[in-house]
């Protein structure tokens, strides 16, 4: 059991977390946030192992990891 949360208003949609996830469970929102980006979303909570790779790569510290 693991999951992440993303600060939707701070996310700049850079995609570094999406690429870093070994389980490929992060994707982008279809809507844009107030600063104009498609933000990162945990698409597949079942697959998340709470490894923290996404957290490590996020330049804006938008991600929190739960396990």
């Amino acid at each position: 059991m693991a999951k992440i949360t993303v600060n939707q208003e701070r996310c700049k949609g850079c995609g570094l977390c999406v690429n870093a996830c070994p389980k490929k469970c992060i994707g982008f929102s279809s809507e844009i946030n107030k600063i104009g980006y498609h933000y990162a979303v945990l698409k597949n909570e079942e697959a998340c192992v709470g490894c923290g790779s996404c957290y490590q790569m996020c330049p804006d510290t938008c991600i929190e990891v739960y396990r």
Partner: protein
Amino acid sequence: MEKILSRPKALKDFPLSYCPGCGHGIVHRLVAQAIDDLGIRERTIAVAPVGCAVFAYNYFNFDTTEAPHGRPPAVATGIKRTNPDKIVFTYQGDGDLAAIGTAETIHCANRGENITVIFINNANYGMTGGQMAPTTLLGQVTETTPFGRDPLREGYPINVCELLAGLKGTKYIERVSVCDAPNVMKAGKAIKKAFQNQVEGRGYSFIEVVSHCPVDWGKTPLEATKWVKDEMLKIFPLGIIKDETK
């Protein structure tokens, strides 16, 4: 479920002015985490540079001053000598540290000041739109090398770690990168070690972070981290370059 990873206390909950995907943000978090881990937030003072990190005082949750145009090592020297109980570090880009402030960098290192230096090598002057820096690779196209850096015209990339390792005053020098998650974790350990050295009074510690500047490189964040791995790390090899702390 329990929260296992979140924002360190030493990093304010404040939006960063950096472009999407910029390496600076990752390094800010690593510095803040090291300061949290060592429990030194109440006695840390940062000196910020000119460059994209010029607003670091808005982001770090501890005292931060600003010494633009390569002067952080001189200002940090003054702060540390008058406040030896404080933990003092500079945070500088390659234009600031290795071009504009070369003299300050070298003499501070040579005096062996007991400070920590965090050096962000992103192979160009990021803030001003991507001009050549001393660390720009041969052949790299920048605003001021439109046909690529030519060694006959602009000289060679400077390996700052190796240069400083030759000075007797320097005690700990390591080069790391933030191009992928495993490297980010290694970089975090190196940064923590560089602060720990200062806490223990072991002398001048220098960490070079090979970082990415997607926007001025004209690349996506992913392409930029790949370019760090494929091109920059060939010229700037990772590892401990000098360790005289034992």
